[in-house]
Structure formats: C-alpha cells, structure tokens
C-alpha cells in the first residue's frame, strides 16, 4: 500500500533521514522502533508531507505522492495522529469530531464514521458535549485517534500514541489499534514502547541514526538476538 524508497529529509541544514526504505502492506500494522533521535517522527512527518522530502520516493496505492502537500494526502485517504494529540481543547468532543470530517469526502461519510468511532470508543459518546481539554489523557488520545478516523482514511500514521499514558491506558490504546486493523485499516506506527507494539504489529522496522537497521516480520525481529541486544535493549 505504501512504498518508501531512499527517503531523505531533515531540518534546515541538518539531515536526519539518510535513505529510508520501507513498505507497509495493506490491512497490517507496521511499527517503526528505535532510540530517541533516530528519526522516527521525522519519517512519519516526511511521509505525511509536513516535512518536505529531500530525496527519494513515496508511493501510495500505486501513485507517486512524494511531493504532495498533506491536504492532498488526506484526500487520498492517508492521515496522521500527531505526537502530542493536537486536539481543539476549547471545542466539545463532538465538535472535534465534526472538524475531523472537514473534507467533502469525509463529510459525506460522517454518519458512518461517527458510528464507527462511537462503537470503538463508547466513552467518547458519553462525553460528547464535554470540552476536549477537560478529558483525561487517555481519553484525549482516543479522541485524537477518533478525529483521524473521521477523515475516513485507509492508512493511519500514528506518532507515539502511548506517550505519557499510564500502563493500563497504554494497553487500551494498543487494543484499539488492533481493532482498527480488524476494521480493515492499515496502520503505520512509531513507538517507544517496544514490547506492547511488537505484540500487536505484523511488521517492524528498526531505525538507527536515520537509516533502517533491520526490517521484517515481527517474528523475525523477535528471533534476531543481535537486533534485540543492539537496538531494543532486551
């Protein structure tokens, strides 16, 4: 579904990604792991287009989307759950969801998307008219994912969805991601939480200093003693 070849990018003069190759298969969960500063978030930002690629090629459902701006990618069914959630704290939960369905394509499917969102997150329905800023951390993360779902996507990029959450909520978030896969969605995940994310993922890539150090199925990752020792610290 998503094919990335030789992707390079960075900030200003500083190059962060030194040629990333990765593939995301349809209806799978793929996780990118790696230490701080390896370029995990940068990879997602470059794929989504908030950061311009310097070089390389990004292909999505057979189209070259390397230099498309983010809003065009959302139109094509890709979305990002940004790091730190980026909700509208002064709007109600429902208004946040309305905002998610901003595009015409998404607005047409508003009812269906809302039904899906509320079946996945019954708690958001209970808190529908509450301001997003007053939700707990876990609920806010749920809302961030829910708002992304309202764009009616096929591929969701998630930047550290478990960040800053209590262990019990982390588990809940990962269970939700599994449910999204069951709904037929494809997920590309960036995570610090190695154990929990390997538990739910089908494929894993290990990023090291802006390059892919290892890539394969989760079982392959788990079996490779070298990978575990060198990069995952287990």
């Amino acid at each position, binding site marked *: 579904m998503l094919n990335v070849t030789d992707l390079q990018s960075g900030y200003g003069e500083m190059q962060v990604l030194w040629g990333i190759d990765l593939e995301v298969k349809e209806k799978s969960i793929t996780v990118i792991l790696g230490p701080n500063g390896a370029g995990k978030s940068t990879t997602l930002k470059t794929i989504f287009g908030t950061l311009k690629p310097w070089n390389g090629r990004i292909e999505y459902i057979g189209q070259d989307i390397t230099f498309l701006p983010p809003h065009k990618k959302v139109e094509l069914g890709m979305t990002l759950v940004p790091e730190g959630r980026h909700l509208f704290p002064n709007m109600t939960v429902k208004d946040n969801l309305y905002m*998610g369905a901003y595009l015409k394509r998404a607005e047409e499917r508003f009812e269906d998307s809302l039904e899906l969102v509320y079946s996945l997150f019954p708690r958001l329905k209970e808190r529908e008219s509450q301001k997003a800023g007053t939700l707990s951390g876990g609920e806010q993360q749920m809302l961030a994912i829910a708002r992304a779902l309202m764009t009616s996507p096929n591929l969701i990029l998630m930047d550290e969805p478990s960040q800053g959450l209590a262990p019990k909520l982390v588990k809940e978030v990962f269970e939700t991601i599994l449910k999204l896969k069951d709904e037929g969605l494809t997920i590309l995940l960036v995570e610090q939480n190695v154990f929990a994310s390997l538990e739910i993922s089908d494929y894993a890539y290990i990023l090291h200093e802006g390059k892919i150090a290892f890539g394969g199925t989760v079982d392959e990752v788990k079996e490779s003693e070298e990978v575990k020792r060198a990069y995952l610290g287990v």
Partner: protein
Amino acid sequence: MRNYTPLVTLLLIYAVMIAIGQGIQGMWQPIMLVIFYIAVGQALNIFLGMTGYVNFGYVALLGVGAYGMAVALGYYTDLGLIPALTLGFILAILLAFIVSMVVGGIALRLRGAYFAIATIGVNEGIKYLILGGKIWGGSSGIVLSGILRKAYGAETMRFLSTVFADAGLIVVAILSGIITMYILNSRLGYGLIALREDEDAAKVMGINVRRYKQIAFVISCILAGLIGATAWTLKLTYVFPQDVFAINYTVEAIVIVMLGGAGTLLGPVVGGLIYALLKYYLTIAFPGMQLLILAPLLIIVILLFPEGVVGYLAKAARGTRFEKFVR
C-alpha cells in the same frame, strides 16, 4: 448551523450611529471617526481574528488603496468623473490585491511570529519606494483639491469629499462586516478557525492551510485598500506617503480587534467604538495627555475581558434569548 442574525445587531448599531451623527449637532465628525476605526478593525479582523496571524504591514494596504484612488482622480481627469472614480476603486482593489498576493505568497510560508516580523518591512519598503523612486509625486504626494475643482467644479468636489466619501466608507465598513459573517458561517471559516487553534491539527484534517491563510489575507487587504481610497483620498483630497504609511494605524487596528474580540463579528465594532470615542474625547478634555490616559484604560479593558468585550458578551449571552444576536 448557519446564523446570520448577528448582522441585525450590526446594522442596528450602524443605524443608531448614523442617526446620532445626523440628528445631533457636531456629532457627525466623531461618528465618522468611529466608523473609520470600526472599518479598519473589521477588515484586519478577517485576517488577524480568523487566523491568529499578525499583519504588521496592514497600513500599507490602506496606503496603496489611497494611492490607487489618487492616481485615478489625479492623472485621469480626462475620463470624466464617474469613469475616473470607477477606475480609482478598481486601482485600489488591484494594488491591494497585487501587494497582498506578493506579500502573502512569500511571508505566509512563515509561521506565527516569523510572519509578523516579515511583514514589518512591507510598509516602510513601499513608503521609501515611493519617496526614493519619486513615484506618484514622491514626497510631494498627490494633491487633488485643485485638480478636482478645476475639472468638476467646487460643488462636485465638496460633495465628493463629504457625502460621497463618508457614504463610501460606511458601505465598505458594513461590507466588511457582512463578509466576516459570511466567512464565519462558511466552510472556509471553519477551516480558518481550525488552523488558528492548531495549524498541525488543521493539516491532519486535510485543510490546505497555506491557501486558506492566503485567502483571508487577500480579502482583508482588499478591504483595507478600499478604506484607504474612501476615508483618506476621497475625504481628505490629498495623499502623502508619510501620512498613509504611518505604522500607528496598524497598531491601532490590532488594539481595536483585541479590545473588541478577535474572530468575532461585533468585536471590531465595539472595539472601534471604545477606542475612537475614548481617543476623541480624551484629546478634547486633556489635550496632549490623551495617550497617557488612554493606554492604562485600554490595559484595564484587556485585563477585564481577555477574550475581548464581545468574546465576553457572547459567553454571557449563551443560553439567553440574546444568544443568536451576539457573535
């Protein structure tokens, strides 16, 4: 949930102001000052209030609008009055459009405070281009009174600089309000609110943030150009670079928007009323001391109403029958 009823409040306020100005001796001048500041705030609000971006080059747009009208009236008298006036409005719009497309196209690539810094130079740049390049009369400006009197007679000139200029400004002010209301109720408006609240979130929702900011910027700038053309060129019948590129108007416009409530329809109206009336009467009561008294008063208002007076009123009216009329 489209709601245009706040326009009723808006038009009512204009009706009362015009009635007071026409009915009470000596009130027309302060009322027109108020309407000038309302217009200036309302046009800026479409960009500042909707996007949260500060345009420090704002007055330059009033300036080029003023020059557009002055050039048409001063250099194309042969066309006759109506065609020259029409050309004046077209030039004002066109110049404001070109400047805002160029400035926006470049500066809107920057986010937040960097945009504000980038726009500071615009005003000075255009001013010194006209001064140094001796364009349109350079430092001696364009003085229209003689030209207009010779071409169309004293009577017509007086009509142009009084009734026509005032009516023109009122129309532009009300038009800015109607456009604001339309945007607030539109898809564009929701997109702008999203990007004002969180630009990254807006991108994730599929909003073309660059384009939306540019649209709001250009609309705001064109209206500013029309204010310059009516309130300055037509009313004063002269244009000097030092006058029309005076940065204090930008600051005043920002104050009015923040005072009344950024991103609201009635905010600039209330802000303009408070600001202009305070300034006018403080100048009369304490000549020379007005700014010394005005500044702390404004600080007090901002402290009492951090979301602006209308932002506060809209909250207070929630759940009452006035709710629909305040926005």
